[in-house]
C-alpha cells in the first residue's frame, strides 16, 4: 500500500468574490521512500495541496471531497489533536520562504529542539545532541545551533530549515520550492544534499516547484498541475521523453535548451484562468492549440493512458512520430 | 499578623478618643508653619484656620460683636501726646502671661517683634520685605517701639496716627517670643536676603501664647493641633452687653476689665475661654464632595470653607440627621466696575442707566432661587454699625419695562441718542419687548445705532467676567447684564474668561486695560472698613492701585482721608455713611450681590458659643470657645 494516497481531493477557498477552485479532483499516490515532483505555474494549487496534506489551510478553506490516506489513515477527517501528532513526525515540510520560517527571537537550535521535545519524551541535552547530528547531516557546524536566525546566511537558514524538517525522522517530507530564494549553485548543492539525506533515511519526498528543471533530477515521478487540476502524472523520463498533455508539452518547450536561455511558454497565448470562474470543460482549452468543441463542453477524465502514465485530456499526444 | 496590628492601632485610637478630639475638614494643605510666612507671603485662609490660634496680639476685635478689646494688653492704650515733634502712646501688658516654655511674656517680646519689622534691610523695612499683612501692622508713620519697663511699651509715631495705623494697625500685630527668635533673626540678618532666610526658618518647638499649638503635620493628609495647657486666657470670661458694654474677668490671672460702659443692660453673650478640646485634627479633603460625604458619615464634625456651602451640598446635607446648617451674611460683595477713564463709562448718566437696568432681585430670586443676596451699598448691610441703609438705589422696585424706559430717559437726558430708539411694547405682558408691532399696528423697529452725546457711535464695550467654569453665578449675571444692555442697542460683549485673565487685564502693568468687569471682594476687618479708602481714593488710581474705576472725587478723597485719621469709630461712622451715599450716587461700582455663608456641622459633636456671626464660623475660626460633645 502507498505511504500517501490522495484520492479525488477537492478544496476551495471561500472569498467575498466567490469560491476559488484551488484544488479540483486531484489524485496521486506516493510510495514509501519515493521522491515525487509537483510542477505548475504559480497559483495552480501546488502549495494548496501541500498545506492540505498538513492541514494548515486558512479558515476560509473549504474541503469539498476526496480523501488523503496517510498510512491508511484519512488525515482530513481525524480530530485536530491526532493530526497534531502526525505533523512533523509523520509528515514534515520544508517551507518556501526559509528566511521567514524561523522565529527571529529564538535560537535556531532551540526551535528544532522544541519540535523534537514535542514529539519525543527526551531531555534537553539529548535533544541538543540530536540537533548536532542533524546540523552535521545538512552540512552546518553544530555550534551554530546557539545562534539566532538573523546571524545566518540565506543558505545556512535553508539548511537549518531542512535540518528542522528532518528532526523527527518523518516518513514524508514536503519540500515547497525549497531553493527558489537561493542562487543557482547553492540551489544545486542543497537539492543534492536533500536527495542524499532522503536516500540515507529512506523517507518519501514531495517536491513542489514552478520550475520543472529544478526538480527533474531529484524526483522519480512528476505530476503536472494546471489551474487546480492534476493534468498529467508519470515518471520523470516519460514526462520528458513523450509528454501527453499539451500543457506539459508547452512546459517542456520552456525547458532550457543547450544555449541555456529560457523561452516563453511556446504557443501559449493568454494567462492562466481566474480560478474564481474556471473555464467550462477542460480548464486549459482557452489556451490550448488543439482545443475542440468537446474540450469546451465537458472536463476530460483523469485516466491511465499507458501503465503508470496518467493524463487528463480529450486529445492526449500519444507516442511520437 | 498585619491584621492584628491593625486592631492594636484601633485600640490606640480608642484611647485617643477618650481625650476629646474634633475632626474639622479643610480643603487645602498648610503651606508653612512659620509665623512670618503665615502672616506674610503665605497668608492663606487655610494656614489661618489651622495655625491662627497659636499666637496672640495686644488687642483684637472680638466676634461676634467685633468689639475692640485688649487681649495680651492690660486695658486700653494711653492717649497720644506730642513729645518734641513725635507722637507717643504707651501700652501696658498683662502680668502673669507665660509662653509654653514657662517664661513670662514681657515688653521685650513686644519690642523685639516690632524691631524685627522696623529693621531696615536692603533699603526697605523688614515689614515690607516680608510682605503679606506685615506692612499693615507696621505703618510707615510708626517710628519706634520702646520698652518702658518689663510690662510697658511705648509706641512712637511721626504724626498722630488714626484708627488705621494705630487701633486696627500696630496694636493688632501678632507677638513672637524674643528668646526663640532673636538668634534666628540675627542669623538671618547675616544672609544676603534676610527676609527670605527668616521666612525659611522651620520653627521647631517655637514657644507660643495661643490656645492651640500644632503638634503634627502630615503633608497632604492632615494637621493636628493640641490645646495649650498654659494658655493664659483659659477660664477667662468675656461678657458682652446689648448696650455695647464689655467685661473681661480672668480669675487665673486675677485680671478684671470693663469697657464701653461695662455691665449695662441685658447680656448679649457670655464667652468663657477654653480651649475645651484636647486636640483638633484637620483632615485635608481635596474636593467638597469628599468632605460632605465624610460629614454625613460622621468622620468629621464640620468643614471650613471661606465660600460656604454650595446649594447642592446644602440640599444634600439638610436631609442628614445630626447635621445642622447655619446661614450667615457674608463680609464681602461681588460687583460690576466701570472704567471711568473711557467712553461711555465716563458719563455718569451711562453708569446710572446701566445700574437702573440691572434687576438684581430678578436674578437673585428667580434664577438663583435665593442662593444669592442682592446688595446695594459699598458696606454690606450685614455690618449694621457701618452700613448706611438709605443710599440711593437706581431702578429699585421697577418692572423690567419700567427699567428700560427709565434708562432710556436718563440716557436721552444726558444727550445720548439712537438711530432707532428703544420703545417698550405691550409692557407687563408675556410678549413684552422692545421690538415688534403695537396693537394699533405701527411697527416698532429693533433699537439700533446707540450714539454718544457728541453724536459719534458708541464704541464696542467689553464686559469681562469669570467664566462659568470659575464662578457660574457671576458668569450668569454677566450674561443677563449683557442681554439687558443689548436690548438698548448698547454695543456690549460679555467676555467670560479665566480669573487670572481678568486680573491681569484690570491690573495691567501699564494702567487699567478694561471697559467693565465683574469680580468680587472679601473685606478685611469688619470693625474697620478701611477698604473704602483703598478702592476709591484717587491716590489708588495708579497702575497696580486698587481704585480700578478711576474714581476721582476730591470730596470723597477728603472724607476717606479723614476716616483713616479718625480717632474713634464713633467719629468715623458718619464719614463712612457719607462715603457710601456718594458711591451709590456716582456708581463707579455697581454692587451686585453676594452669597450668604452656609455652614454645616454635626450638632451632636460640636457646640459653638454662638452661630450668628458675620462671615460665618469659618470667618472667626479658630475658636478657643468651641466644645466637643463626644
Amino acid at each position, binding site marked *: 500500500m502507498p505511504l500517501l494516497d490522495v484520492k479525488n481531493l477537492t478544496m476551495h477557498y471561500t472569498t467575498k468574490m466567490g469560491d476559488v477552485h484551488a484544488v479540483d479532483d486531484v489524485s496521486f499516490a506516493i510510495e514509501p521512500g519515493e521522491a515525487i515532483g509537483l510542477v505548475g505555474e504559480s497559483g495552480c494549487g501546488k502549495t494548496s495541496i501541500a498545506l492540505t496534506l498538513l492541514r494548515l489551510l486558512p479558515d476560509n478553506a473549504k474541503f469539498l471531497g476526496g480523501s488523503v490516506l496517510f498510512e491508511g489513515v484519512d488525515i482530513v477527517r481525524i480530530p485536530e489533536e491526532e493530526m497534531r501528532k502526525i505533523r512533523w513526525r509523520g509528515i514534515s515540510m520544508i517551507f518556501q520562504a526559509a528566511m521567514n520560517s524561523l522565529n527571529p527571537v529564538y535560537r535556531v537550535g532551540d526551535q528544532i529542539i522544541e519540535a523534537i521535545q514535542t514529539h519525543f519524551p527526551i531531555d534537553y541535552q539529548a535533544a541538543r545532541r540530536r540537533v548536532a547530528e542533524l546540523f552535521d547531516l545538512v552540512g552546518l557546524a553544530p555550534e551554530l545551533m546557539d545562534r539566532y536566525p538573523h546571524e545566518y546566511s540565506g543558505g545556512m537558514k535553508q539548511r537549518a530549515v531542512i535540518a528542522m524538517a528532518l528532526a523527527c525522522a518523518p516518513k514524508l517530507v514536503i519540500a515547497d520550492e525549497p531553493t527558489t530564494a537561493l542562487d543557482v549553485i547553492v540551489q544545486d548543492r542543497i537539492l543534492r544534499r536533500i536527495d542524499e539525506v532522503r536516500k540515507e533515511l529512506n523517507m518519501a519526498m514531495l517536491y513542489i516547484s514552478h520550475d520543472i528543471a529544478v526538480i527533474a533530477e531529484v524526483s522519480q515521478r512528476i505530476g503536472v498541475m494546471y489551474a487546480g487540476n492534476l493534468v498529467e502524472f508519470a515518471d520523470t523520463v516519460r514526462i520528458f521523453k513523450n509528454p501527453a498533455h499539451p500543457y506539459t508539452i508547452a512546459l517542456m518547450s520552456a525547458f532550457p535548451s543547450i544555449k541555456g536561455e529560457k523561452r516563453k511558454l511556446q504557443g501559449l497565448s493568454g494567462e492562466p484562468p481566474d480560478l474564481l470562474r474556471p473555464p467550462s470543460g477542460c480548464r486549459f482549452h482557452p489556451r490550448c492549440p488543439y482545443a475542440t468543441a468537446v474540450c469546451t463542453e465537458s472536463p476530460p477524465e483523469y485516466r491511465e493512458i499507458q501503465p503508470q502514465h496518467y493524463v487528463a485530456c480529450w486529445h492526449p499526444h500519444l507516442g511520437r512520430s | 499578623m498585619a491584621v492584628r496590628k*491593625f486592631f492594636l492601632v484601633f485600640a490606640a485610637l480608642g484611647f485617643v478618643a477618650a481625650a476629646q478630639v474634633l475632626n474639622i475638614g479643610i480643603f487645602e494643605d498648610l503651606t508653612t508653619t512659620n509665623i512670618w510666612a503665615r502672616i506674610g507671603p*503665605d497668608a492663606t485662609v487655610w494656614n489661618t484656620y489651622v495655625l491662627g490660634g497659636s499666637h496672640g496680639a495686644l488687642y483684637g476685635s472680638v466676634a461676634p460683636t467685633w468689639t475692640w478689646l485688649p487681649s495680651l494688653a492690660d486695658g486700653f492704650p494711653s492717649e497720644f501726646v506730642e513729645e518734641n515733634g513725635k507722637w507717643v502712646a504707651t501700652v501696658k501688658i498683662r502680668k502673669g502671661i507665660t509662653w509654653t516654655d514657662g517664661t513670662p511674656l514681657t515688653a521685650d517680646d513686644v519690642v523685639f517683634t516690632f524691631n524685627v519689622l522696623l529693621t531696615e534691610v536692603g533699603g526697605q523695612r523688614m515689614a515690607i520685605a516680608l510682605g503679606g499683612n506685615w506692612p499693615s501692622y507696621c505703618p510707615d508713620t510708626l517710628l519706634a517701639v520702646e520698652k518702658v519697663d518689663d510690662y510697658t511699651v511705648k509706641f512712637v509715631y511721626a504724626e498722630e496716627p488714626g484708627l488705621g495705623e494705630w487701633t486696627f494697625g500696630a496694636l493688632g500685630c501678632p507677638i513672637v517670643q524674643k528668646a526663640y527668635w532673636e538668634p534666628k533673626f540675627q542669623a538671618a540678618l547675616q544672609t544676603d536676603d534676610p527676609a527670605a532666610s527668616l521666612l525659611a526658618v522651620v520653627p521647631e518647638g517655637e514657644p507660643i501664647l495661643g490656645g492651640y499649638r500644632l503638634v503634627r503635620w502630615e503633608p497632604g493628609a492632615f494637621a493636628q493641633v493640641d490645646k495649650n495647657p498654659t494658655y493664659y486666657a483659659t477660664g477667662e470670661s468675656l461678657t458682652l452687653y446689648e448696650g455695647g458694654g464689655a467685661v473681661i474677668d480672668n480669675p487665673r490671672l486675677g485680671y478684671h476689665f470693663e469697657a464701653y460702659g461695662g455691665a449695662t443692660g441685658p447680656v448679649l453673650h457670655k464667652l468663657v475661654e477654653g480651649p475645651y478640646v484636647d486636640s483638633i485634627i484637620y483632615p485635608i479633603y481635596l474636593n467638597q464632595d469628599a468632605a460632605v460625604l465624610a460629614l454625613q458619615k460622621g468622620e468629621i464634625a464640620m468643614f471650613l470653607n471661606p465660600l460656604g456651602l454650595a446649594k447642592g451640598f446644602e440640599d444634600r446635607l439638610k436631609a442628614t440627621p445630626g447635621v445642622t446648617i447655619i446661614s450667615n451674611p457674608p463680609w464681602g460683595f461681588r460687583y460690576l466696575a466701570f472704567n471711568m477713564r473711557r467712553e461711555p463709562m465716563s458719563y455718569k448718566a451711562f453708569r446710572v442707566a446701566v445700574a437702573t437696568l440691572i434687576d438684581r432681585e430678578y436674578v437673585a430670586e428667580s434664577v438663583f432661587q435665593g442662593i444669592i443676596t442682592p446688595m446695594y451699598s459699598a458696606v454690606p448691610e450685614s455690618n449694621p454699625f457701618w452700613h448706611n441703609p438709605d443710599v440711593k438705589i437706581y431702578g429699585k422696585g421697577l418692572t423690567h419695562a419700567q427699567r428700560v424706559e427709565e434708562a432710556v430717559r436718563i440716557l436721552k437726558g444726558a444727550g445720548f441718542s439712537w438711530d432707532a430708539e428703544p420703545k417698550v411694547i405691550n409692557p407687563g405682558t408675556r410678549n413684552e419687548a422692545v421690538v415688534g408691532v403695537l396693537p394699533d399696528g405701527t411697527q416698532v423697529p429693533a433699537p439700533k445705532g446707540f450714539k454718544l452725546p457728541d453724536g459719534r457711535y458708541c464704541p464696542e464695550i467689553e464686559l469681562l467676567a469669570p467664566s462659568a467654569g470659575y464662578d457660574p453665578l457671576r458668569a450668569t449675571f454677566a450674561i443677563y447684564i449683557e442681554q439687558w444692555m443689548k436690548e438698548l442697542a448698547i454695543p456690549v460683549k460679555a467676555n467670560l474668561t479665566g480669573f487670572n485673565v481678568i486680573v491681569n487685564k484690570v491690573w495691567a502693568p501699564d494702567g487699567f486695560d478694561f471697559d467693565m468687569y465683574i469680580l468680587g471682594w472679601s473685606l478685611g476687618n469688619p470693625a474697620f472698613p478701611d477698604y473704602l479708602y483703598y478702592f476709591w481714593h484717587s491716590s489708588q488710581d495708579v497702575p497696580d492701585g486698587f481704585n480700578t474705576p478711576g474714581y476721582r472725587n476730591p470730596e470723597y478723597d477728603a472724607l476717606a482721608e479723614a476716616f483713616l485719621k479718625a480717632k474713634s469709630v464713633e467719629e468715623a461712622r458718619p464719614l463712612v455713611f457719607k462715603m457710601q451715599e456718594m458711591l451709590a450716587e456716582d456708581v463707579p461700582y455697581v454692587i451686585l450681590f453676594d452669597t450668604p455663608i452656609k455652614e454645616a456641622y454635626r450638632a451632636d459633636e460640636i457646640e459653638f458659643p454662638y452661630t450668628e456671626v458675620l462671615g460665618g464660623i469659618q470667618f472667626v475660626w479658630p475658636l478657643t470657645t468651641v466644645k466637643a460633645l463626644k
Partner: protein
Amino acid sequence: MLRYIGWRIAQIFVTFFLFLTMVFLIFQAMPGDYTKQFIMNPKIPPEARQALAERLGLTGSVWDQYLHYVRNVFTGNLGVSFQHYPREVWDVIKERLPRTAVLFLVADLLAFALGYPLGKYIAWRRGRISDYVVTVTGVLFYTIFTPLLAIILLFVFSNVLGWFRSGGFLTPSLWLRPPVSPQTVFLLLTATICGLLGLWAGSHFLTRRIGHPRPRAWARRGLVALGLGLAGIAWGYSGIGSYAWDIVWHMFLPVLAVTLISFGGTMLLMRDSMLEVIREDYITTAKAKGLPEKVIRDKHAARTALLPTITNFTIGLGFIVSGGIVTETMFSWKGMGLTYLEAVLQQDFPLAMGCLTFTGILVLLLHLVVDVLYAFLDPRISY
C-alpha cells in the same frame, strides 16, 4: 552597546535642553505674575508686592532668567515654589512623587497584566464573538470620560457599598502616632513592587537553562511566589504593616479606575501586533511542527508581538503627571497631578515648570530604558 547608550544619552541631553527652552518660553509668555495673587488684599502695598516679585526672581531680563533657569535645572535645582514659599520645588516634588508613583506603578502593571493576555486571547480568536465583545468593552473603558468612571466607582464602592473612604490616602485617626511617615511607607511600597518586578524578570534569566518548558514555568512561578511570601512576611513583622495596609486600602479605588482606563490601550495594541505576527511564516512552521496551540500562541506569537506593547507601556509610565490630574482630583489623591493642577491655577510657575521638567526627564529616561530593554528582548537588535 555602551557606545550606543552613550550616544543616546548625548541625544537625550540635546532634546532635553530644547525641551527646557520650550517650557521656559511657554511660561515666559504667560501674562501677569504670582504677586497678582495678593491683588486681592488691598492691605498689601505695591512696594511689598514689588519686594516679593524681586525675591521670586520675576524681575530682571528674560535672558538672565533663562540662563538662571537652565543653570539651575542642570544643577538639579528646580527653583523655589511660590505657593510654598520658600520651599524648594524639588522638595515639594519629592514629597508628592512617591504617592503618584505607587498609584500608577500598581495600576499600570495591573492594566498590563490584564491587557496583555486579553489582547493575546482575542487576537487568537479573531472574528469570534468574544473578540468583538472584549474589543468593544476595552474601547469603551479606554475612551470613557475619566471623571464619569470615577463618579460611578465612588458611587458604587463608597456610597452604596461603603467599602472605601471617598478620598485621601490615609485615615487620619490611624496616623496620630505612627512609627513612620507616609512618605517612608510609600517609598517602601515602591521598593517592594520594583523588587518583585525585578525578581519576576530575573526568574526568567535564572531558569532559562531548565530543559523542559513546564518545569521552567513552575520554577519561575515558585520564585515569584517566594518573593511575594517574603515581602508579605516582612511587611507583617515590620510593625508598619497596618499603616501600609491603610494606604493600600485607600489606593484601591484610584488604582481600579486607572487600571480600567488603561488596560484597553495595551490590549488593543497587543491584539493588533499579534494579528500581524500571526501572519508570519514561522507561525505556520510552528503549526506544521505540531506544537500545541497554546505554545504557538504564547511562545511564538505573543513573545514577538510583545515588543511594541512594551515600548508603549514603558513610555506611558512617564506621563504620570498629566495622567494623574483627573484621577487624583476625583479621588483626592494629593500627588503630582494635583500638584501640577494647583500650581497652574495658582500661577506657581516654578512648581508647574518643575513638574513639566520632571516629566520630560522621566520620559526621556524611559526612552533609554526601552532601548536597553529591546537589546534584551529582541536578539535581532544589538547596538
